[in-house]
């Protein structure tokens, strides 16, 4: 297996395999993401792209291969894994805001409990983040009182509050009503411009064109193509990718 391992890779996956029983969901995955790079992972459903994303902070375990973040191998379980996860922001399809905490508490909980930041300072930074994603005035409310788009922007703020080295987005707009998708994508595009390292699993081709440095196309658990957005959308090499793109563009 030839793997080019760039010395400055922030996220590195080497020969990663995972099975769900008989199903081989990740087949020999090699992926290296440099600092500041925005990698968009696309592909048909069931192609393993969400599993890939969740494996990077070990919400999914892998069978073999290795994953490292900023040069550190992903630990098994326990304290070290927890502290590594603190450096990896994660945004879920279903938002997963803490239902019993206010919007402000959702954002401050990590810094206060995990990093030991003083409450006053955490509150101040959280308010700045909430303003930045456009939901500052919602701070005292509970998650259920917000729209899906607002909740997802709070979820992004919650992840950013930990000052992560890399942000993972697992289909962040798939559970949203169409008119709310853009408000979330705008925040993500802004984040990409500011130089955040991002791995984004999405079906939003517009976002891939606009913000991605690289597009990774997955099918049947494999990385089939890894190219710049222009290259991938204008001149896909594999028949699998051509087939996928043609289905998208016919409607």
């Amino acid at each position, binding site marked *: 297996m030839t793997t080019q391992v760039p010395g400055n890779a922030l996220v590195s996956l080497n020969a990663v395999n995972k099975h769900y029983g008989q199903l081989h969901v990740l087949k020999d995955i090699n992926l290296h993401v440099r600092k500041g790079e925005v990698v968009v992972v696309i592909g048909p459903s069931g192609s393993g792209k969400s599993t890939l994303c969740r494996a990077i*902070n070990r*919400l999914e375990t892998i069978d073999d291969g290795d994953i490292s973040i900023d040069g550190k191998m992903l630990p098994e*379980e*326990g*304290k070290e894994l*927890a*502290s*590594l*996860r*603190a*450096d*990896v*922001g*994660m945004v*879920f399809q*279903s938002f*997963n*805001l*803490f*239902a*019993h905490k206010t919007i402000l508490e959702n954002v401050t*909980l*990590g810094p206060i*409990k*995990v*990093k030991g930041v003083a409450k006053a300072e955490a509150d101040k930074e959280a308010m700045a983040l909430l303003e930045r994603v456009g939901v500052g005035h919602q701070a005292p409310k*509970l998650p*259920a*009182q917000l729209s899906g788009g607002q909740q997802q922007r709070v*979820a992004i703020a*919650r*992840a950013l509050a*930990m000052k992560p080295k890399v942000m993972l987005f697992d289909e962040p707009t798939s559970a949203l009503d169409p008119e709310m998708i853009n408000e979330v994508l705008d925040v993500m595009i802004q984040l990409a411009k500011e130089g955040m390292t991002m791995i984004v699993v999405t079906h939003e081709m517009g976002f891939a064109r606009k913000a991605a440095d690289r597009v990774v196309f997955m099918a049947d658990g494999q990385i089939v193509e890894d190219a710049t957005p222009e290259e991938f959308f204008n001149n896909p090499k594999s028949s699998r990718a051509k087939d996928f793109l043609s289905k998208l563009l016919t409607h």
Partner: protein
Amino acid sequence: MDVIIESLPQYWDGFLRTLFLAVVSGIIALVVGTLLAAARVSPVTALRGFSMAYVEVVRNTPLTIAFFFAAVVLPRLGVTFQQFEIAAIIALSAYTSAFIAEAVRSGVNSVPVGQAEAARSIGMKFSQVLSLIILPQALRTVIPPMINILIALVKNSSVAGAFYVLELFGYGKQLANEHGDAVMWVLVGVAFFYLLITVPLGYVAHQVERKVAIAR
């Protein structure tokens, strides 16, 4: 009816002792039961096994066995008490905690898995995920079954009366012996004082439940 008025001091004394038994055992059972539930979902196999075995054994055996164990077996093993009340509290809290553990566990299962994933993804340890995110949500959803368990505890405390603890039921027995002609009214009095605890408990539960409900 006169017997109730005449015996008010005894009733009151019994009432306070029943209340004491229920409150102390209830608090211990809530704490122990929650810990058992936490052990049941922990990543440590030995803890899970212990919790499961404890709950299965205690939940499926009669309360009187727990009382005999606390009042008769423990002293033979060298654990002696000045008062039988201590044995009663041990038996009641050991018994009730098994039911609390099951209720809390069902609450834990009702919290969406995404809540735990989000908590883990911001770097929380297992103990933090459980105490800050899962249990606060789980406990709110299990208030109704929890209150049923506590009401059962109040009534179960009457078994202590058979073990020489002069709580409501113990006094009831005594009064019934003394007033053989008015047994019915003696029992009405006993029932009234039990209701004095259990009915408000149900009411308070309803209020608390409304107040802490979480929308999703």
